[in-house]
Protein backbone atom coordinates (compact mmCIF):
# COMPACT_ATOMS: atom_id res chain seq x y z
CA UNK A 1 0.00 0.00 0.00
CA UNK A 2 2.91 2.38 0.71
CA UNK A 3 3.77 2.42 -3.01
CA UNK A 4 0.40 3.89 -4.00
CA UNK A 5 1.07 7.54 -2.93
CA UNK A 6 4.25 8.03 -5.02
CA UNK A 7 2.50 6.56 -8.06
CA UNK A 8 -0.58 8.73 -7.54
CA UNK A 9 1.70 11.78 -7.20
CA UNK A 10 3.40 10.76 -10.46
CA UNK A 11 0.04 10.45 -12.22
CA UNK A 12 -1.02 13.91 -11.05
CA UNK A 13 2.29 15.47 -12.08
CA UNK A 14 1.99 13.94 -15.55
CA UNK A 15 -1.58 15.19 -15.83
CA UNK A 16 -0.49 18.73 -14.89
CA UNK A 17 1.90 18.63 -17.82
CA UNK A 18 -0.77 17.49 -20.31
CA UNK A 19 -4.00 19.22 -19.30
CA UNK A 20 -5.44 18.71 -22.78
CA UNK A 21 -6.40 15.16 -21.74
CA UNK A 22 -8.84 16.78 -19.36
CA UNK A 23 -10.37 19.27 -21.80
CA UNK A 24 -13.29 17.06 -22.99
CA UNK A 25 -14.29 16.46 -19.37
CA UNK A 26 -14.18 20.22 -18.65
CA UNK A 27 -16.38 20.88 -21.68
CA UNK A 28 -18.76 18.12 -20.58
CA UNK A 29 -18.90 19.66 -17.09
CA UNK A 30 -19.60 23.10 -18.57
CA UNK A 31 -22.42 21.69 -20.72
CA UNK A 32 -23.87 19.83 -17.73
CA UNK A 33 -23.90 23.10 -15.73
CA UNK A 34 -25.42 25.18 -18.47
CA UNK A 35 -28.25 22.95 -19.70
CA UNK A 36 -30.55 23.16 -16.59
CA UNK A 37 -30.15 26.95 -16.67
CA UNK A 38 -31.35 26.94 -20.26
CA UNK A 39 -34.48 25.04 -19.20
CA UNK A 40 -35.16 26.75 -15.89
CA UNK A 41 -34.02 30.34 -16.46
CA UNK A 42 -33.09 31.27 -20.05
CA UNK A 43 -36.01 29.79 -22.03
CA UNK A 44 -38.72 31.15 -19.63
CA UNK A 45 -36.95 34.55 -19.67
CA UNK A 46 -36.95 34.83 -23.46
CA UNK A 47 -40.43 33.28 -23.78
CA UNK A 48 -41.77 35.78 -21.25
CA UNK A 49 -43.53 32.99 -19.33
CA UNK A 50 -42.95 31.51 -15.93
CA UNK A 51 -42.57 27.76 -15.52
CA UNK A 52 -45.14 27.79 -12.75
CA UNK A 53 -47.72 29.09 -15.27
CA UNK A 54 -47.52 25.77 -17.10
CA UNK A 55 -49.52 22.82 -15.84
CA UNK A 56 -46.78 20.42 -17.05
CA UNK A 57 -44.82 20.90 -13.85
CA UNK A 58 -47.78 20.90 -11.47
CA UNK A 59 -47.41 17.32 -10.22
CA UNK A 60 -43.63 17.59 -9.93
CA UNK A 61 -43.96 20.88 -8.02
CA UNK A 62 -46.48 19.37 -5.65
CA UNK A 63 -44.28 16.33 -5.00
CA UNK A 64 -41.19 18.46 -4.59
CA UNK A 65 -42.81 20.96 -2.21
CA UNK A 66 -43.91 18.11 0.04
CA UNK A 67 -40.27 17.97 1.19
CA UNK A 68 -39.76 20.00 4.39
CA UNK A 69 -36.78 21.90 2.95
CA UNK A 70 -38.79 23.05 -0.07
CA UNK A 71 -41.83 24.37 1.75
CA UNK A 72 -40.62 27.96 1.86
CA UNK A 73 -40.04 28.15 -1.90
CA UNK A 74 -42.28 30.03 -4.30
CA UNK A 75 -44.02 27.86 -6.95
CA UNK A 76 -41.46 29.06 -9.53
CA UNK A 77 -38.63 28.41 -7.10
CA UNK A 78 -39.90 24.88 -6.44
CA UNK A 79 -39.87 24.07 -10.15
CA UNK A 80 -36.40 25.54 -10.57
CA UNK A 81 -35.18 23.59 -7.52
CA UNK A 82 -36.73 20.43 -9.01
CA UNK A 83 -34.88 20.95 -12.30
CA UNK A 84 -31.59 21.99 -10.73
CA UNK A 85 -31.53 19.18 -8.19
CA UNK A 86 -32.33 16.46 -10.71
CA UNK A 87 -29.79 17.85 -13.16
CA UNK A 88 -27.20 17.32 -10.46
CA UNK A 89 -27.24 13.57 -11.16
CA UNK A 90 -26.16 14.09 -14.72
CA UNK A 91 -23.61 16.76 -13.83
CA UNK A 92 -22.04 14.68 -11.09
CA UNK A 93 -22.04 11.53 -13.18
CA UNK A 94 -20.78 13.10 -16.39
CA UNK A 95 -18.02 15.24 -14.93
CA UNK A 96 -16.53 12.67 -12.59
CA UNK A 97 -16.89 9.69 -14.87
CA UNK A 98 -15.78 11.27 -18.13
CA UNK A 99 -13.05 13.27 -16.40
CA UNK A 100 -11.63 10.33 -14.54
CA UNK A 101 -11.93 7.90 -17.41
CA UNK A 102 -10.17 10.21 -19.83
CA UNK A 103 -7.19 10.18 -17.48
CA UNK A 104 -7.34 6.48 -16.64
CA UNK A 105 -7.51 5.23 -20.19
CA UNK A 106 -4.54 7.37 -21.17
CA UNK A 107 -2.75 6.36 -18.01
CA UNK A 108 -2.49 2.59 -18.59
CA UNK A 109 -2.34 2.73 -22.38
CA UNK A 110 0.00 5.71 -22.29
CA UNK A 111 2.39 3.71 -20.11
CA UNK A 112 2.20 0.77 -22.47
CA UNK A 113 2.81 2.91 -25.53
CA UNK A 114 5.67 4.87 -23.98
CA UNK A 115 7.27 1.59 -22.81
CA UNK A 116 7.38 2.91 -19.24
CA UNK A 117 5.47 -0.01 -17.83
CA UNK A 118 8.29 -2.57 -17.94
CA UNK A 119 10.70 -0.72 -15.61
CA UNK A 120 7.77 -0.06 -13.33
CA UNK A 121 6.81 -3.75 -13.28
CA UNK A 122 10.44 -4.57 -12.43
CA UNK A 123 10.05 -2.81 -9.07
CA UNK A 124 8.43 -4.48 -6.05
CA UNK A 125 5.13 -2.75 -6.91
CA UNK A 126 2.21 -5.21 -6.90
CA UNK A 127 -0.59 -5.26 -9.46
CA UNK A 128 -3.03 -4.14 -6.77
CA UNK A 129 -0.83 -1.15 -5.89
CA UNK A 130 -0.30 -0.26 -9.52
CA UNK A 131 -3.98 -0.41 -10.45
CA UNK A 132 -5.07 1.37 -7.26
CA UNK A 133 -2.64 4.17 -8.07
CA UNK A 134 -4.00 4.36 -11.60
CA UNK A 135 -7.59 4.46 -10.33
CA UNK A 136 -6.96 7.05 -7.58
CA UNK A 137 -4.63 9.09 -9.75
CA UNK A 138 -7.46 9.42 -12.25
CA UNK A 139 -10.30 9.68 -9.73
CA UNK A 140 -8.82 12.64 -7.85
CA UNK A 141 -8.81 15.03 -10.85
CA UNK A 142 -12.30 13.81 -11.82
CA UNK A 143 -13.60 14.42 -8.32
CA UNK A 144 -11.84 17.79 -8.15
CA UNK A 145 -13.50 18.77 -11.42
CA UNK A 146 -16.85 17.62 -10.11
CA UNK A 147 -16.45 19.65 -6.88
CA UNK A 148 -15.43 22.69 -8.93
CA UNK A 149 -18.44 22.24 -11.22
CA UNK A 150 -20.71 21.75 -8.20
CA UNK A 151 -19.40 24.95 -6.58
CA UNK A 152 -19.94 26.94 -9.77
CA UNK A 153 -23.36 25.34 -10.17
CA UNK A 154 -24.49 26.29 -6.65
CA UNK A 155 -23.07 29.80 -7.04
CA UNK A 156 -24.88 30.20 -10.38
CA UNK A 157 -28.15 28.89 -8.90
CA UNK A 158 -27.76 31.34 -5.99
CA UNK A 159 -27.22 34.18 -8.48
CA UNK A 160 -29.81 33.45 -11.16
CA UNK A 161 -32.56 31.31 -9.58
CA UNK A 162 -35.34 32.28 -7.21
CA UNK A 163 -34.30 33.00 -3.61
CA UNK A 164 -33.73 29.89 -1.50
CA UNK A 165 -33.37 27.52 -4.47
CA UNK A 166 -29.62 27.23 -3.97
CA UNK A 167 -30.19 25.85 -0.46
CA UNK A 168 -31.93 22.85 -2.06
CA UNK A 169 -28.57 22.01 -3.66
CA UNK A 170 -27.11 21.59 -0.17
CA UNK A 171 -29.60 19.15 1.34
CA UNK A 172 -28.15 15.88 2.74
CA UNK A 173 -29.64 14.10 -0.29
CA UNK A 174 -27.88 16.41 -2.76
CA UNK A 175 -24.63 16.33 -0.83
CA UNK A 176 -24.73 12.52 -0.64
CA UNK A 177 -25.29 12.49 -4.36
CA UNK A 178 -22.30 14.73 -4.98
CA UNK A 179 -19.82 13.50 -2.41
CA UNK A 180 -20.73 9.80 -2.10
CA UNK A 181 -22.39 8.67 -5.30
CA UNK A 182 -20.19 10.82 -7.53
CA UNK A 183 -16.84 9.45 -6.34
CA UNK A 184 -18.19 5.88 -6.18
CA UNK A 185 -19.54 6.10 -9.71
CA UNK A 186 -16.23 7.58 -10.82
CA UNK A 187 -14.32 4.69 -9.24
CA UNK A 188 -16.62 2.21 -10.95
CA UNK A 189 -16.07 3.90 -14.31
CA UNK A 190 -12.36 3.99 -13.70
CA UNK A 191 -12.11 0.35 -12.89
CA UNK A 192 -13.97 -0.39 -16.10
CA UNK A 193 -11.57 1.86 -17.99
CA UNK A 194 -8.57 0.17 -16.38
CA UNK A 195 -9.98 -3.30 -17.13
CA UNK A 196 -10.57 -2.28 -20.72
CA UNK A 197 -7.26 -0.52 -21.16
CA UNK A 198 -5.44 -3.60 -19.89
CA UNK A 199 -6.82 -5.40 -22.92
CA UNK A 200 -7.10 -2.87 -25.73
CA UNK A 201 -4.39 -0.96 -27.56
CA UNK A 202 -6.09 2.39 -27.96
CA UNK A 203 -6.90 4.89 -25.22
CA UNK A 204 -10.04 6.06 -27.01
CA UNK A 205 -11.46 2.52 -27.19
CA UNK A 206 -10.92 2.08 -23.46
CA UNK A 207 -12.46 5.45 -22.71
CA UNK A 208 -15.47 4.97 -24.96
CA UNK A 209 -16.21 1.44 -23.79
CA UNK A 210 -15.88 2.39 -20.13
CA UNK A 211 -17.96 5.54 -20.62
CA UNK A 212 -20.66 3.66 -22.49
CA UNK A 213 -21.09 1.17 -19.66
CA UNK A 214 -21.27 3.79 -16.90
CA UNK A 215 -22.77 6.89 -18.54
CA UNK A 216 -25.75 5.08 -20.07
CA UNK A 217 -27.16 3.99 -16.67
CA UNK A 218 -26.61 7.54 -15.34
CA UNK A 219 -28.48 9.02 -18.28
CA UNK A 220 -31.24 6.43 -17.81
CA UNK A 221 -31.49 7.38 -14.12
CA UNK A 222 -31.73 11.04 -15.07
CA UNK A 223 -34.56 10.40 -17.54
CA UNK A 224 -36.35 8.13 -15.07
CA UNK A 225 -36.18 10.91 -12.48
CA UNK A 226 -37.55 13.52 -14.84
CA UNK A 227 -40.50 11.41 -15.88
CA UNK A 228 -41.18 10.52 -12.27
CA UNK A 229 -40.30 6.84 -12.65
CA UNK A 230 -37.64 7.03 -9.96
CA UNK A 231 -37.46 9.28 -6.93
CA UNK A 232 -33.93 9.33 -5.52
CA UNK A 233 -34.54 9.24 -1.78
CA UNK A 234 -31.73 9.26 0.80
CA UNK A 235 -32.36 5.53 1.39
CA UNK A 236 -32.13 4.82 -2.31
CA UNK A 237 -28.87 6.77 -2.54
CA UNK A 238 -27.50 4.76 0.38
CA UNK A 239 -28.54 1.48 -1.26
CA UNK A 240 -26.96 2.57 -4.54
CA UNK A 241 -23.78 3.55 -2.67
CA UNK A 242 -23.56 0.08 -1.11
CA UNK A 243 -24.09 -1.48 -4.53
CA UNK A 244 -21.40 0.74 -6.04
CA UNK A 245 -18.96 -0.19 -3.25
CA UNK A 246 -19.55 -3.89 -3.90
CA UNK A 247 -19.23 -3.30 -7.64
CA UNK A 248 -15.95 -1.52 -7.08
CA UNK A 249 -14.53 -4.36 -5.00
CA UNK A 250 -15.57 -6.95 -7.60
CA UNK A 251 -14.19 -4.88 -10.46
CA UNK A 252 -10.84 -4.39 -8.71
CA UNK A 253 -10.40 -8.14 -8.35
CA UNK A 254 -11.35 -8.60 -12.03
CA UNK A 255 -8.96 -5.81 -13.05
CA UNK A 256 -6.08 -7.49 -11.17
CA UNK A 257 -6.77 -10.72 -13.02
CA UNK A 258 -7.14 -9.01 -16.38
CA UNK A 259 -3.94 -7.02 -15.90
CA UNK A 260 -1.76 -9.77 -17.23
CA UNK A 261 1.82 -8.57 -16.76
CA UNK A 262 3.16 -11.26 -19.05
CA UNK A 263 1.01 -10.48 -22.07
CA UNK A 264 1.53 -6.76 -21.56
CA UNK A 265 5.29 -7.27 -21.67
CA UNK A 266 5.45 -9.88 -24.37
CA UNK A 267 2.71 -8.74 -26.73
CA UNK A 268 3.00 -4.99 -26.44
CA UNK A 269 5.54 -3.60 -28.88
Amino acid at each position, binding site marked *: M*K*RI*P*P*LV*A*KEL*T*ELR*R*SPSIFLPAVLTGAAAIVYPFIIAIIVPYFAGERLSDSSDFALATELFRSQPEARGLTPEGAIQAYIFEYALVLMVGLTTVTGSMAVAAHSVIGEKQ*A*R*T*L*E*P*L*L*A*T*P*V*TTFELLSAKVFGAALPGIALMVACFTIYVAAVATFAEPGVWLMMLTPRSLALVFVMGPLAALLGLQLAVCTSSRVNDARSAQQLGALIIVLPIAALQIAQFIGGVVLTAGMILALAVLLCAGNAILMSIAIRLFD*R*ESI*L*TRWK
Partner: protein
Amino acid sequence: MSFELVPGEIVALLGPNGAGKTTTLRMLGGLIHPTSGSVLLDRQTVTPATASRLRASIGFLTETPGLWERLTVRQNLTVYARLHGLASASLAVDRMLDLFGIADRARDFAGELSKGLKQRVALARTLLHDPSIVLLDEPTAGLDPQSAHDVRELVRRLRDERRAVLLSTHNLDEVDRVADRVAVLRTRLVAVDTPAALRRRLFGRRVRVELARDAASHVSVLRASGINDVVVDGAVISVGLNEHVTIAGLVRRLIESGAAINTVIPEERSLEDVYLRLLEEAE
Protein backbone atom coordinates in the same frame (compact mmCIF):
# COMPACT_ATOMS: atom_id res chain seq x y z
CA MET B 1 18.49 -23.85 -19.88
CA SER B 2 20.34 -23.99 -16.63
CA PHE B 3 23.05 -21.67 -15.42
CA GLU B 4 24.11 -19.84 -12.33
CA LEU B 5 25.06 -16.24 -11.78
CA VAL B 6 27.27 -15.51 -8.79
CA PRO B 7 28.28 -12.26 -7.04
CA GLY B 8 31.22 -10.45 -8.59
CA GLU B 9 30.63 -11.94 -12.02
CA ILE B 10 29.50 -10.58 -15.37
CA VAL B 11 27.72 -13.05 -17.62
CA ALA B 12 26.82 -11.94 -21.15
CA LEU B 13 23.78 -13.34 -22.91
CA LEU B 14 24.40 -13.64 -26.62
CA GLY B 15 22.04 -14.77 -29.31
CA PRO B 16 20.27 -13.72 -32.49
CA ASN B 17 17.07 -11.66 -32.37
CA GLY B 18 14.26 -13.77 -30.96
CA ALA B 19 16.65 -16.16 -29.24
CA GLY B 20 15.08 -15.47 -25.85
CA LYS B 21 17.56 -13.07 -24.25
CA THR B 22 15.00 -10.51 -23.11
CA THR B 23 12.58 -13.24 -22.07
CA THR B 24 15.34 -14.81 -19.97
CA LEU B 25 16.11 -11.48 -18.31
CA ARG B 26 12.42 -10.90 -17.63
CA MET B 27 12.11 -14.34 -16.07
CA LEU B 28 15.15 -13.75 -13.89
CA GLY B 29 13.78 -10.35 -12.94
CA GLY B 30 10.48 -11.88 -11.84
CA LEU B 31 8.50 -10.00 -14.47
CA ILE B 32 7.28 -13.11 -16.19
CA HIS B 33 7.23 -16.68 -14.97
CA PRO B 34 8.72 -19.69 -16.71
CA THR B 35 6.23 -22.13 -18.21
CA SER B 36 8.41 -24.87 -16.76
CA GLY B 37 11.45 -24.93 -14.55
CA SER B 38 12.34 -22.38 -11.91
CA VAL B 39 14.41 -19.32 -11.13
CA LEU B 40 16.15 -19.17 -7.76
CA LEU B 41 17.38 -15.93 -6.22
CA ASP B 42 19.39 -16.35 -3.05
CA ARG B 43 18.01 -19.91 -2.81
CA GLN B 44 14.40 -18.67 -3.00
CA THR B 45 12.22 -19.65 -5.93
CA VAL B 46 10.70 -16.77 -7.85
CA THR B 47 6.94 -17.32 -7.96
CA PRO B 48 4.05 -14.88 -8.48
CA ALA B 49 3.77 -14.77 -4.68
CA THR B 50 7.45 -14.05 -3.99
CA ALA B 51 8.29 -12.02 -7.09
CA SER B 52 7.32 -8.64 -5.64
CA ARG B 53 9.63 -9.10 -2.61
CA LEU B 54 12.49 -10.61 -4.61
CA ARG B 55 12.38 -7.84 -7.20
CA ALA B 56 13.66 -5.52 -4.45
CA SER B 57 17.12 -7.09 -4.78
CA ILE B 58 17.19 -6.79 -8.57
CA GLY B 59 18.03 -3.84 -10.75
CA PHE B 60 16.61 -4.28 -14.24
CA LEU B 61 17.65 -2.00 -17.08
CA THR B 62 15.05 -2.53 -19.76
CA GLU B 63 15.75 -2.46 -23.48
CA THR B 64 14.29 1.03 -23.80
CA PRO B 65 14.96 3.62 -21.06
CA GLY B 66 11.20 3.85 -20.35
CA LEU B 67 11.37 7.21 -18.60
CA TRP B 68 8.27 9.28 -17.92
CA GLU B 69 8.98 12.02 -20.41
CA ARG B 70 6.73 14.64 -18.84
CA LEU B 71 8.55 14.30 -15.54
CA THR B 72 11.96 15.77 -14.77
CA VAL B 73 15.00 13.58 -14.29
CA ARG B 74 14.80 14.10 -10.52
CA GLN B 75 11.08 13.33 -10.45
CA ASN B 76 11.61 10.11 -12.42
CA LEU B 77 14.25 8.93 -9.96
CA THR B 78 12.33 10.07 -6.90
CA VAL B 79 9.26 8.02 -7.84
CA TYR B 80 11.42 4.91 -8.15
CA ALA B 81 13.28 5.66 -4.91
CA ARG B 82 9.94 5.83 -3.13
CA LEU B 83 8.65 2.69 -4.87
CA HIS B 84 11.70 0.88 -3.49
CA GLY B 85 10.89 2.28 -0.06
CA LEU B 86 14.25 4.01 0.36
CA ALA B 87 14.43 5.77 3.73
CA SER B 88 15.97 8.93 2.33
CA ALA B 89 14.79 9.00 -1.26
CA SER B 90 16.14 12.48 -1.87
CA LEU B 91 19.67 11.57 -0.74
CA ALA B 92 19.65 8.40 -2.83
CA VAL B 93 18.57 10.41 -5.87
CA ASP B 94 21.28 13.02 -5.27
CA ARG B 95 23.89 10.25 -4.97
CA MET B 96 22.83 8.73 -8.30
CA LEU B 97 22.67 12.10 -10.04
CA ASP B 98 26.26 12.76 -8.95
CA LEU B 99 27.45 9.24 -9.75
CA PHE B 100 26.14 9.42 -13.29
CA GLY B 101 27.15 13.05 -13.86
CA ILE B 102 23.60 14.21 -14.50
CA ALA B 103 23.11 16.50 -11.49
CA ASP B 104 23.07 19.53 -13.79
CA ARG B 105 20.22 17.98 -15.80
CA ALA B 106 18.10 17.05 -12.76
CA ARG B 107 15.46 19.67 -13.53
CA ASP B 108 15.23 18.86 -17.24
CA PHE B 109 12.26 16.91 -18.51
CA ALA B 110 13.21 13.36 -19.46
CA GLY B 111 11.64 13.90 -22.87
CA GLU B 112 14.20 16.61 -23.64
CA LEU B 113 17.26 14.42 -23.06
CA SER B 114 19.47 12.80 -25.70
CA LYS B 115 19.44 9.02 -26.05
CA GLY B 116 22.73 8.70 -24.14
CA LEU B 117 21.50 10.84 -21.28
CA LYS B 118 18.23 8.93 -21.11
CA GLN B 119 20.22 5.73 -20.85
CA ARG B 120 22.29 7.22 -18.02
CA VAL B 121 19.13 8.18 -16.16
CA ALA B 122 17.75 4.68 -16.74
CA LEU B 123 20.97 3.19 -15.35
CA ALA B 124 20.77 5.50 -12.34
CA ARG B 125 17.21 4.29 -11.81
CA THR B 126 18.35 0.67 -12.10
CA LEU B 127 20.96 1.08 -9.35
CA LEU B 128 19.06 3.49 -7.13
CA HIS B 129 18.12 0.82 -4.56
CA ASP B 130 21.59 -0.75 -4.47
CA PRO B 131 20.56 -4.11 -5.96
CA SER B 132 22.76 -7.18 -5.56
CA ILE B 133 21.67 -8.55 -8.95
CA VAL B 134 21.81 -6.32 -12.02
CA LEU B 135 20.12 -7.31 -15.28
CA LEU B 136 21.04 -5.15 -18.26
CA ASP B 137 19.16 -5.49 -21.54
CA GLU B 138 21.37 -4.06 -24.30
CA PRO B 139 22.76 -1.26 -22.13
CA THR B 140 24.94 0.30 -24.84
CA ALA B 141 22.62 -0.09 -27.82
CA GLY B 142 22.53 3.13 -29.82
CA LEU B 143 25.01 4.97 -27.59
CA ASP B 144 27.97 6.97 -28.91
CA PRO B 145 31.43 5.44 -28.26
CA GLN B 146 32.15 7.63 -25.21
CA SER B 147 28.79 6.86 -23.57
CA ALA B 148 29.18 3.15 -24.37
CA HIS B 149 32.65 3.22 -22.83
CA ASP B 150 31.24 4.87 -19.68
CA VAL B 151 28.55 2.21 -19.42
CA ARG B 152 31.16 -0.57 -19.76
CA GLU B 153 33.23 1.07 -17.02
CA LEU B 154 30.17 1.12 -14.85
CA VAL B 155 29.47 -2.55 -15.53
CA ARG B 156 33.03 -3.43 -14.48
CA ARG B 157 32.58 -1.35 -11.36
CA LEU B 158 29.42 -3.29 -10.53
CA ARG B 159 31.45 -6.50 -10.69
CA ASP B 160 34.09 -4.98 -8.42
CA GLU B 161 31.34 -4.17 -5.95
CA ARG B 162 30.52 -7.91 -5.87
CA ARG B 163 27.24 -7.59 -7.68
CA ALA B 164 26.05 -10.30 -10.05
CA VAL B 165 25.61 -8.81 -13.51
CA LEU B 166 23.76 -10.39 -16.42
CA LEU B 167 24.13 -8.48 -19.63
CA SER B 168 22.23 -9.03 -22.86
CA THR B 169 23.91 -7.62 -25.94
CA HIS B 170 24.62 -8.03 -29.64
CA ASN B 171 27.97 -6.31 -29.26
CA LEU B 172 30.60 -9.08 -29.28
CA ASP B 173 33.45 -6.65 -28.74
CA GLU B 174 31.72 -5.43 -25.61
CA VAL B 175 31.33 -9.00 -24.39
CA ASP B 176 35.02 -9.65 -24.99
CA ARG B 177 35.88 -6.54 -22.97
CA VAL B 178 33.70 -7.04 -19.93
CA ALA B 179 32.21 -10.53 -19.62
CA ASP B 180 33.63 -13.24 -17.40
CA ARG B 181 31.37 -15.83 -18.96
CA VAL B 182 29.24 -15.99 -22.07
CA ALA B 183 25.89 -17.73 -22.42
CA VAL B 184 24.82 -18.28 -26.01
CA LEU B 185 21.09 -18.68 -26.58
CA ARG B 186 19.13 -19.85 -29.53
CA THR B 187 15.72 -20.46 -27.92
CA ARG B 188 17.72 -22.80 -25.66
CA LEU B 189 21.05 -22.50 -23.96
CA VAL B 190 23.64 -23.52 -26.55
CA ALA B 191 26.73 -22.98 -24.42
CA VAL B 192 27.88 -21.19 -21.31
CA ASP B 193 31.52 -20.74 -20.38
CA THR B 194 34.36 -18.25 -20.33
CA PRO B 195 35.24 -16.84 -23.75
CA ALA B 196 38.70 -18.49 -23.52
CA ALA B 197 37.24 -21.90 -22.70
CA LEU B 198 34.76 -21.63 -25.56
CA ARG B 199 37.57 -20.74 -27.95
CA ARG B 200 39.61 -23.74 -26.78
CA ARG B 201 36.66 -26.07 -27.01
CA LEU B 202 35.66 -25.02 -30.51
CA PHE B 203 38.94 -24.22 -32.18
CA GLY B 204 41.58 -25.72 -29.91
CA ARG B 205 44.80 -23.85 -29.14
CA ARG B 206 46.83 -22.77 -32.12
CA VAL B 207 50.08 -20.93 -32.66
CA ARG B 208 51.09 -18.82 -35.64
CA VAL B 209 54.77 -18.95 -36.64
CA GLU B 210 56.10 -16.50 -39.19
CA LEU B 211 59.30 -17.62 -40.91
CA ALA B 212 61.83 -15.58 -42.86
CA ARG B 213 61.23 -17.58 -46.05
CA ASP B 214 58.56 -19.84 -47.58
CA ALA B 215 57.41 -22.36 -45.00
CA ALA B 216 56.30 -25.21 -47.29
CA SER B 217 59.62 -27.04 -47.08
CA HIS B 218 59.32 -27.35 -43.28
CA VAL B 219 55.89 -28.92 -43.20
CA SER B 220 57.11 -32.41 -44.04
CA VAL B 221 59.58 -32.25 -41.13
CA LEU B 222 56.82 -31.31 -38.74
CA ARG B 223 54.51 -34.04 -40.03
CA ALA B 224 57.27 -36.59 -39.77
CA SER B 225 57.59 -35.74 -36.10
CA GLY B 226 53.85 -36.26 -35.52
CA ILE B 227 52.64 -32.66 -35.83
CA ASN B 228 49.85 -33.11 -38.35
CA ASP B 229 47.52 -30.10 -37.74
CA VAL B 230 49.54 -27.71 -39.86
CA VAL B 231 48.24 -25.01 -42.22
CA VAL B 232 50.71 -23.15 -44.40
CA ASP B 233 50.18 -19.75 -46.01
CA GLY B 234 53.38 -18.45 -47.63
CA ALA B 235 55.91 -17.86 -44.87
CA VAL B 236 53.32 -18.39 -42.12
CA ILE B 237 52.59 -21.72 -40.45
CA SER B 238 49.54 -22.21 -38.21
CA VAL B 239 49.84 -25.23 -35.93
CA GLY B 240 47.26 -26.82 -33.64
CA LEU B 241 48.59 -27.43 -30.12
CA ASN B 242 47.74 -30.28 -27.78
CA GLU B 243 49.31 -32.14 -24.87
CA HIS B 244 51.93 -33.66 -27.23
CA VAL B 245 52.55 -30.55 -29.27
CA THR B 246 53.82 -27.58 -27.27
CA ILE B 247 55.08 -24.21 -28.49
CA ALA B 248 58.60 -24.96 -27.22
CA GLY B 249 58.70 -28.36 -28.98
CA LEU B 250 57.38 -26.87 -32.21
CA VAL B 251 59.94 -24.07 -32.23
CA ARG B 252 62.77 -26.53 -31.47
CA ARG B 253 61.75 -28.74 -34.43
CA LEU B 254 61.50 -25.81 -36.80
CA ILE B 255 64.96 -24.57 -35.79
CA GLU B 256 66.33 -28.11 -36.15
CA SER B 257 64.93 -28.18 -39.70
CA GLY B 258 66.79 -24.96 -40.46
CA ALA B 259 63.88 -22.50 -40.34
CA ALA B 260 64.59 -18.83 -39.54
CA ILE B 261 61.75 -17.77 -37.22
CA ASN B 262 60.61 -14.16 -37.18
CA THR B 263 57.67 -14.33 -34.76
CA VAL B 264 55.69 -16.84 -32.70
CA ILE B 265 52.21 -15.67 -31.71
CA PRO B 266 49.45 -17.70 -30.03
CA GLU B 267 46.43 -17.54 -32.35
CA GLU B 268 43.23 -16.25 -30.81
CA ARG B 269 39.97 -16.69 -32.69
CA SER B 270 37.56 -13.82 -32.39
CA LEU B 271 34.46 -14.14 -30.25
CA GLU B 272 32.51 -13.68 -33.45
CA ASP B 273 34.03 -16.92 -34.79
CA VAL B 274 33.09 -18.66 -31.54
CA TYR B 275 29.57 -17.27 -31.63
CA LEU B 276 28.95 -18.16 -35.26
CA ARG B 277 30.36 -21.66 -34.77
CA LEU B 278 28.11 -22.21 -31.76
CA LEU B 279 25.05 -21.06 -33.68
CA GLU B 280 26.02 -23.29 -36.59
CA GLU B 281 26.31 -26.25 -34.27
CA ALA B 282 22.97 -25.40 -32.67
CA GLU B 283 21.13 -25.52 -36.02
